[in-house]
């Protein structure tokens, strides 16, 4: 087990190094750049040359990359070109917001998706099943930004159930401990802040959850249908076990194996979905930071670190999923 973890972590390091090189070269070949953004279109060639030299962009890309990696190994990702703040600080501010949003979205997706998928399978071919098929198709096809604006319009403009944007109301006095507002409220016993943060979370999290939710409903449904045909479910019925036992121990424990894999893969969807969702709800997270860093003059240092972070999160979540597999499925453990 330990050997598997170590091997996977080494693979992770290799992946990240390769990815960093790719991003580094790719970013520098995008049209436009920080120099144009900082100096504007009418800058003189001389001032441009001066800035290019100051930022170190006159050197060959490989040399730039080597210097970048050297600094990264000491934990220094450079400063944002746009604001001048250290990249780690900029990202550190935005990171908890996105993780909080993505975590709540995943809780919604799994919490609703697994029961719905199970019920659809048990009522195969009937109304509930057909509704779930239609609903999941809609959930997968509807663009996030469209759904986001739609929900925002209905629930914040027409009926004022939820706040239109932001992570917390202006009047609420919250103490920043971890940056996770819901958690901070609980830690400092400012429960009104927790409540307010959750209230702000509901619409964006639901928007972000639609695609993973639809996928999880479908996978759960298909997987439960497979398991229902298994002989061991018939054995469980022949034992006269209660519905509850058959559902939990014999059907779901087997049916959830592919669902767990899906949850890992859906983190990718969550990260990309966060970019759109955060834009719609003005959520100050990584998604907002990434769009601002691209449109605000190709903020190379921030972008590099952001993409690496996204890759890191994706790979780590999938590593955790793979490891959890070994705990759920004894057949994996032996190998």
């Amino acid at each position, binding site marked *: 087990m330990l050997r598997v973890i170590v091997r996977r972590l080494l693979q992770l390091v290799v992946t990240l190094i390769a990815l960093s090189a790719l991003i580094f070269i790719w970013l520098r070949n995008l049209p436009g750049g920080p120099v144009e953004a900082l100096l504007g279109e009418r800058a003189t060639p001389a001032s441009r040359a001066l800035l290019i030299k100051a930022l170190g962009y006159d050197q060959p890309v490989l040399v730039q990359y080597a210097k970048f990696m050297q600094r990264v190994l000491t934990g220094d990702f450079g400063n944002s070109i746009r604001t001048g703040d250290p990249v780690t600080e900029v990202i550190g501010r935005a990171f908890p917001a996105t993780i909080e949003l993505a975590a709540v979205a995943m809780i919604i997706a799994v919490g609703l998706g697994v029961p719905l998928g199970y019920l659809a399978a048990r009522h195969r071919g009937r109304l509930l099943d057909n509704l779930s098929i239609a609903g999941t198709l809609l959930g997968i096809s509807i663009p996030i930004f469209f759904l986001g604006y739609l929900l925002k319009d209905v629930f914040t403009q027409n009926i004022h159930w939820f706040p239109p944007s932001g992570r917390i109301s202006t009047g609420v006095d919250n103490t920043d401990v971890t940056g996770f507002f819901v958690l901070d409220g609980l830690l400092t016993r400012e429960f009104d802040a927790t409540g307010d943060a959750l209230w702000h979370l509901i619409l964006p999290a639901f928007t972000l959850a639609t695609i993973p939710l639809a996928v999880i409903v479908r996978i759960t449904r298909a997987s439960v249908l497979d398991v229902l045909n*298994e*002989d*061991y479910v*018939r*054995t*469980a*019925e*022949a*034992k*006269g*076990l*209660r519905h509850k*036992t058959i559902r939990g*121990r*014999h059907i779901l*424990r*087997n049916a959830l*194996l592919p669902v767990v894999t899906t949850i890992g893969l859906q983190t990718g969807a969550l990260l990309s979905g966060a970019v759109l969702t955060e834009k719609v709800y003005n959520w100050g997270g990584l998604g907002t930071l990434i769009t601002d860093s691209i449109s605000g003059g190709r903020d190379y240092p921030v972008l590099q670190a952001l993409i690496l972070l996204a890759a890191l999160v994706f790979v780590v979540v999938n590593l955790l999923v793979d490891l959890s597999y070994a705990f*759920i*499925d*004894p*057949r994996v453990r*032996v190998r």
Partner: protein
Amino acid sequence: MSLLDVRDLSVVFQRRGERPFTAVDKVSFSVEPGQTVGLVGESGCGKSVTSLAIMGLLPRRGNKVTGQVMFDGADLLALRPDDMRDRRGRDIGMIFQDPLSSLNPVVPIGTQVAEVLERHRGMDRKAALKEARELLDAVGIPDPNRRLKEYPHQISGGMRQRALIAIALACKPRLLIADEPTTALDVTIQAQILTLLKQLVDETGTALIMITHDLGVVAGLCDTVNVLYGGKVVERAARHELFARPRHPYTHGLLNSVPRLDSPRGERLHAIRGSVADNIPWAEGCAFAPRCDNVVDACLEGTPPLEPTTTGGDLRCNNPVTEEVAVP
């Protein structure tokens, strides 16, 4: 009074847009306490469906079950699903064909034995596991303490079937239904499992319905044998009577097609001609008629009735076989 009395049991599969298919057609038979009864026939003759109908394990939709299954004075088919659930595993146990796929791959063997004790005998987990250990020991699983914690893929096929037998007999049911329990096992293991079953039903007085296509299994185990063809009982007889004097041409053909060690060298193996698919609906005559060597005109004029024979059995045939075959 019989322990189990199946009367006119019919199962019709009915899917939308498809012609209804009668898998089991007015089957009647009974099982006395402690008796071992065989249901014998080829694939598709309705023997497994009969057992699933008795257990109430057929899918809820797509089929119609009629008739009566009297067990202990109550009609199992008329019971509320929850009442039937209380009886399954407690009064009637069942073991299935493929021991690997019949055990849950992600739950330890111990839990799979213990849960039936927790459910029907009200034991807590600790007591149930202790009892499960005894049960595994009783069905001849070596080192039961270790096996309790192991998963189905970690033990051999024979041991898996032993574990399933332990599960089925955990609550000391009065009736055990074994649906081709040895088909998926090696020949040497088959013999062990049959010996074990025989020993256990003798010890506990459990009645047994043995469902099989293998006449060898019947010969070693059953008191009475019901031969099924096309969803109907075509012959019923005591074991010795059936093997000594098979009356129905189908039974006769089955016995003749068993390979024998003492047959002359070079003699061809007998086979019943045609396949199960070559049949006619019972309403139009005998379903076996297209494959039968003894066919007469009457066989194509309506269902032959199931009539008592002089030797205490029942026979559904217009022109029975009269010759004797030596008991294999």
